[in-house]
Every structure is written in C-alpha cells, then in structure tokens.
C-alpha cells in the first residue's frame, strides 16, 4: 500500500505541460490545440496520465510515455478576446486504482480568439458611394500579371501565357489581378451594423475574404488607423485589433 502510494505520487510528479495553439482562432469555430505532456523524471515513465480541463470538459488519457506525449484536441471558443486555458489537472489512478491522485497545474495558457467571421456583402455595407470612386492606382482592363503558373484544365485560352509555354514546353497560364483587387479600408465607425459583435464579425469576414483574394485591406477605428496591406502579419494585426475591440 505504501509502495503503491509512493508510486502513484511519483507518477504524476515532475510533469510539465506545453500547449500550442493554432495561429488563428475564431469564436464559435472549432480549433485544434496541441498539448504536450513532458515527463521530467529520468527513469520513471508516466503511466496512465489523465489531463483534465474542466472549463472545456476535456479529459485526455495517456496510456504510457517515457519522455513526452502529444495530444491534439479541439475546443470551441465562445467569444472573442483574450482567453486562458487554466484549471488544468493531471490525474492518475495508477498503480492500483485505489484512489485518484491529482495535481493542479500552476500554469495558464493564454490565447487570443478573433471574432467569429460572419458573411456579409461588401457592397451592402459600403453602399454605392464607393462605386466609381476607386482609390486603386492599378487600373487595367484585365488587371496586372501577378504570376505564371501551370495550366489547369478549363482555363480559357486567353489566359494562356504563350511566351512562357513556348519557353518551357508546358502549357502555362497567366494569373492576373482582379478588378476588385483595389485596396480598401474598413471603417468600423461607418460600418452600419447596429450590433457591435455583428459589426466585428462582418469586419473579420471582410478582412479574411480580402486577403484570401489578394486585396490589400486596411482598418479604421475610432482611435486607430491601419494602412491597407496584404501581408499575413498585417492580417493578424487587424484581427487582433478586432478581437480586443472595446
């Protein structure tokens, strides 16, 4: 009994946890989280460790590992903002199921939840006033040539880049920038949606859509202004702004 107690205690001692969140977490969208348990004991493997996160009703069971064990699980964040994965318990009934030994992990894992992207039409909100008042300097009937890539079946002949095809002996097509690629700025103050959350959701959707389509997008709030840009970093900055918008 004594030995069982010692073994049980030893089993859950010297364990550490690392959590890796995905870069973009959106409210009400399932996100996958990587959890790594690290066993810092030299000769004592970790038997039957259960990781419990009460807030998320998550209970993960590791059968056996020596140095580390990685779990992937998903959570569904309720709302935007800074959140914490806390109240994490390590528990084990090892070795004899006489009692459950558990330990609260004195660690909090913060993560940022962006607003839930909700589909909304750009023109519905920006109104017709933006029509014809293109700020874009890039004007061209078919847009600019952005890149050349391999032929994809069904691509109209006019997009074939003959010069490149001749050079490489492979059918190449032109990728042109779209008309709608003109950069734009989302002005939260002017976005006429009453509900703040819906407004943020719409803005999130627009930013994501714009960047997906390669349109530089900027953001204007009561206090801050971000110039349109296309970079990934820029996207995260904008989304963070929206996530923490008061």
């Amino acid at each position, binding site marked *: 009994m004594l030995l069982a107690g010692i073994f049980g205690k030893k089993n859950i001692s010297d364990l550490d946890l690392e959590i890796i969140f995905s870069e973009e977490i959106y409210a009400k969208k399932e996100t996958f989280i990587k959890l790594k348990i690290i066993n810092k004991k030299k000769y004592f493997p970790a*038997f*039957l460790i259960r990781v419990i996160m009460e807030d998320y009703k998550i209970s993960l069971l590791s059968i056996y590992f020596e140095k580390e064990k990685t779990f992937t699980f998903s959570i569904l964040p309720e709302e935007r903002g800074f959140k914490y994965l806390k109240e994490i318990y390590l528990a084990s*009934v090892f070795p004899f199921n006489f009692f459950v030994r558990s330990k609260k992990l004195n660690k909090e894992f913060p993560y940022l939840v962006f607003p839930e992207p909700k589909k909304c039409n750009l023109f519905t909100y920006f109104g017709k006033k933006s029509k014809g008042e293109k700020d874009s300097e890039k004007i061209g009937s078919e847009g600019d040539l952005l890149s050349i890539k391999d032929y994809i079946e069904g691509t109209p002949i006019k997009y074939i880049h003959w010069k490149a095809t001749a050079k490489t002996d492979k059918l190449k097509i032109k990728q042109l920038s779209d008309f709608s690629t003109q950069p734009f700025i989302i002005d939260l103050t002017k976005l006429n949606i009453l509900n703040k959350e819906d407004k943020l959701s719409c803005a999130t959707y627009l930013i994501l859509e714009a960047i997906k389509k390669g349109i530089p997008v900027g953001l204007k709030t009561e206090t801050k202004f971000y110039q349109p840009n296309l970079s990934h970093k820029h996207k995260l900055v904008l989304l963070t702004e929206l996530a923490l918008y008061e």
Partner: protein
Amino acid sequence: MSKLNKVYKIETVVKFFTYWAGALAFIILLGKISLFYYLTSLILFLFSIFLEYKNIYLNRTFINISAILFIILKLFTFNLEALITSFLEILLFLLSLKFLENKKFRDYMQIYLLSVIIFAGSTLIFLDIIFLVYLFLYLIILNASIVFLTYYSQDPEMFLSEQILLKIFFKTSIIPLLAIPFTALFFIILPRTDFPLFGFLNKSIKAKTGFSENVKLGDVSEIQEEDLVVFRAKMVKINDDLLYWRGIVLDSFDGKNWFSSHKREDKENLELKGTSIIQTIYLEPYGDKYLFGLDKPYKIKYNIPFQNIQKRALTFFLPFPITSRIKYEVFSFLTPFIYESKINKDLYLQLPKNLSENIKNLAKTLQGTTDEETAKNILRFLKYGKYTYSLSNLPLSSNPLEDFLFKYKYGNCEYFASSMAILLRINKIPSRLVAGYKGGIYNEVGKYYLIRQKDAHVWVEAFIENKGWVRYDPTPPLGFQTYKNLKLSKLELLFETINYYYINLILNYDLKKQLSVIKSISIPFKIFNLKIHLKIESFLFSLIFILSILMSIFLIIYFLKISKIKREEKLIKEFLKILENKGYKKDPAEGLEEFVLKIKEKNLKLKAFNFVKIFEEIYYKDKCFDKEINEKLKALIKEIKNLKDTLKGG
C-alpha cells in the same frame, strides 16, 4: 513488409493475468486440501477458461445461489478443527465460481481478494521453501493484474501494443519487487515453521544436543550444546527434581543403538497416583513427531485435524513430524512410578547379541537381594561412582558400552542410561530408556518453563515387582548441571518473554476464542454459563452459521420477489381488479385499450382510458417508471375506485 506490432485489448490482458493468478492459487493448494473440493474447483476453473474462449458467461444469480448452497453444504461437514483447510476449500471453490461470471471491475477485484486470502491462508499450511517462489510469482502476476485492471477501469476499450504492454509490465513489476523485502520480513516474523525451511543450511557433521528418536552410542565424539527452544510449558513452578519431560520410550538395544520396537502391548493396564498438573505446551517445530509432557503424562488435549495422537507407554506422538508451531494441553501426574500389572517381559529383558562378559560380570557384582536393591546398587555405581559426565571426547567405538564402563569412564546421559538399563536387564529386571528433556528455565513473568535442545536427556525406567515402572536417573547430577546455564541474561529474558507472548497470541487466536468472546457478549450464553463441551460448542457455532445463511437466503429471495413484481405490474393488477369488481373482466387475449373502450359508463370509461393511456406510454416504451408516474397512476386508480362508490351511493 515490416512486422506488425501486435495489439491487445486491455480486457484480454486483464483476463490473461487474472487467470494466471487463479491458476497459481490452484498450484499452491495442490495436495493441501481434500481432493474432492480441489478437483471440483479445478474442473470449474478449466470450464471457465473454455467458456471465456467461447464468450459464454453464467448467470450471476445462478452463481451466487450455487455459492451459497456450497457454503451450506460445506457447513454440514464443517470441521472446527480443520478450520484453515475448510476455509481454503470454500475460498477455492468461490474463486472458481467467480471465474464463470461475466467479469466487471468489481468481480476482478473480488477474484484478487479471494486469491490473496488463499495465499495468506496457505502460508499457515505451506511449509516448503518453494512457497517463496510461488509467492514471488503470485505477487508479480497480482501486481500486473491490478495495474492492467486500473488501465481497464480508465477505458475498457483501450488497446495496447505489445511493446507498451511489456514496458508497463516490466516497469510496474518494480512495485512487487520492492515489496518483497517487506514480505520477506513478514514471512519470517509470521508464525510458521522455520525448521524445514532452513534445515538444509545447517547440516553440520558435529552432533548437537537434542532430542532424537534413537539413542546412538559411540558415533560422535563431541556434542555441541544447542540453545534452540524446543517448547515452552505454561504451568505453575514446581521442584526442579520433578522436571522430567517425557518424550519417547526406547525398549530395544542392539549393542550401539537404542530404538523403539513399536511393539504394541495388548493392553496397557496403567495406574498413576500423584499430584496432577496441567501444562499448556507451545511446541516448536523441532523435526519430530513426539509430544512432550511432564512425567507422567496421561492425557493430551490437542485440536489439530487429521492428526490423531497415538499413545504408547505414556508417550504421545503424531503420525507425522511437527512442521509448525503447535499448542496442546498435557495432564500429568507428578510421580516417579507407573503401576502396571502385566508387562511384556521378553521385550524389556532383550539384550544385544555378543554382549561382553565384562558387563555381565559387572552386573552380577551389583546384584542385590531384591530387584529394587539391585537397581539402587546400579544407580549408585553409575551416578556416584567413578564415572564423569562429558560432552566432548566421547569414545568412538564399535563397542561403546564396554569402553564407557571399563575404559573411558566418562560420557553423556545416553551412556549412563544405557549402562543402567543393560545392567538391569542382565539382572533380569525389565528396563527401558525414556528420552525427553530435563529441567528448564522458569520465566516468572510469563509463568512458563522454557526448554531448550540442550536440556535433552535420557533416563531409565525399571520394572520393580509390586511397584511398577520406577524412574531412575543414573546421570551424575553435578555433571549434568555443569553444562546447563540456569539463567538467561536480562536481555535474553526480555526477548524470550516477548517471543512467548507473541506465540501465545498467534496460537491462541483461533475461532474458538472468538466464539468465546461472542459467547461472553450474548446474555443467554452468560446465563447458561455452564461448561459447554467442545462438541456442543461447534454444534452451536454451526447452528448459528446455518441460521444466518438461511436468513440471508430468505432475505435475498424476498428482495428478488419484491423487485420482480414491479410497480407497474402491481398497478395494472390493482386496476384490473377494480374493474373486475365493476363487472368488466379483461380477456387475456384482449388489449388494454380494447378492453377499456368496451366500458359502458362514460365517466368510468374516460378515467380508465386515461389510466391506460399513461400506463401504455410508459410500459410499452420501456420508459422509467418513476415515482411521479407511479403516484399519478395510483391517484387515478383511487379515483376509479371512488367513482364506483359514488355510483353506489347515488
């Protein structure tokens, strides 16, 4: 293609180890319990393995009932004396029954518990060193079983790869391995024999003082004194001269060895007179079968199964050597005489062939006018003559008696006693040797005598007409005392006393004692505070046991019945009865709704239909019949019943 790593379901793993744990219980009990119970249990166990393969399990109720029936059956043959064996038989049977069930977590734990008790019980009867091996194996298997069961409890659908499985097995086996030193400690301090276990370790060439079945002369030159405790005798303190502990009677001598001819006399017509004294003896496993008692023991009370005490010339012995510490009571008369009317004179006058003329001549010179005088002459000649006592430089000789009497003139008690017996026999006085112990240290705290191997002694009994057997001790007293430490050091005394109480506690801790505790608690017994004979005691015990079992069976059946007639069935029965009273009898083939719709009275019809609707909703959809619904339906029934009354009243 790479070799696939085998994967096992956790339950299979648990079963594998559990069956092994069960198998070990069978191995350990092989030959230790009665064959009938062993084989029955074994067949059940093997059958359970077969069923396990076929994925068939027996009904739990059936198993429980058979277990109860078996216990009742066992109670009829229950032997209070063979307590441990009986319990082991019951346990093994229950264990094999348990294997037949569809096992849940709880069942596995019960199996382990049963097997642990079997192993614990076996320690009391298993005396072989191989037990350690089994114990070791068992601990490893039990540990693995419980560890994997723990895994099973966390997720019954878990699968383990062979590699992980082995890792868990080996790494967790450290637990029992670490536990073994503790176990070993208990193994030593638990009341069990240490004699057969480590006997092979100290086989020395030199002889040691101690009791032996034969008295051999001229075989060893030196005798070491042995401090080993042989027995402890709880009794009042008596005069040291009376402390002769009788063990065995030797009647035949072949020139070198004294032995017992084992010739049974037709009838022993003994008569003893003297102060009677009772001793409680705690005998250590000393390697032989003789039970010692203060000279002259006439009765021994010993409650150990299958071991009938045999008796011969006031010596008592068991059919087999004693292998564990035992406790018995001896009733003795303190007297140097045994009155016996008729003895087998040929037996007690037997002399070895080629007996030396010197000895014969010596015997003649010691002859007195009467047998008694001759005996006294011989005693005086040996005890107070030129002979000295010695344990070293004993004559190694093919003719030890003659060498002792005429050449060396020193020896141990065996030489003195042998000489006297032979000298008596030459003078036609029947004689025999009695081997046992003499003396002992009295422990004032524990009120007992401590007798050690070094107290081993041999003396003579001569048959004197009109007096019977008379005890003569020809060993010089001075010599005898020189090798005897009459006192223990204080520390030794302390340890010895603790030891005694510990042994006392363990050996006294039996069911009968428990029973007597129960007895003293219950008032009827107190009023009846008569000396209840052992048989009545065991009968009462069995009676109480049977009654309690019967009561539990009754309760089980009662509860089973109650739960069988479920609420809903009770309700519908009541409902139909009320309607029947009203003249509407339901046809067995009729549906409830169909039946209710036939009712003519509108109000009643409505209410009855209401009831049926609710009832069917629950009953046929297998919904839980909770208290609320039950109350609701009951109320409806009451309404229906009252409805009839109002009609009548109107």
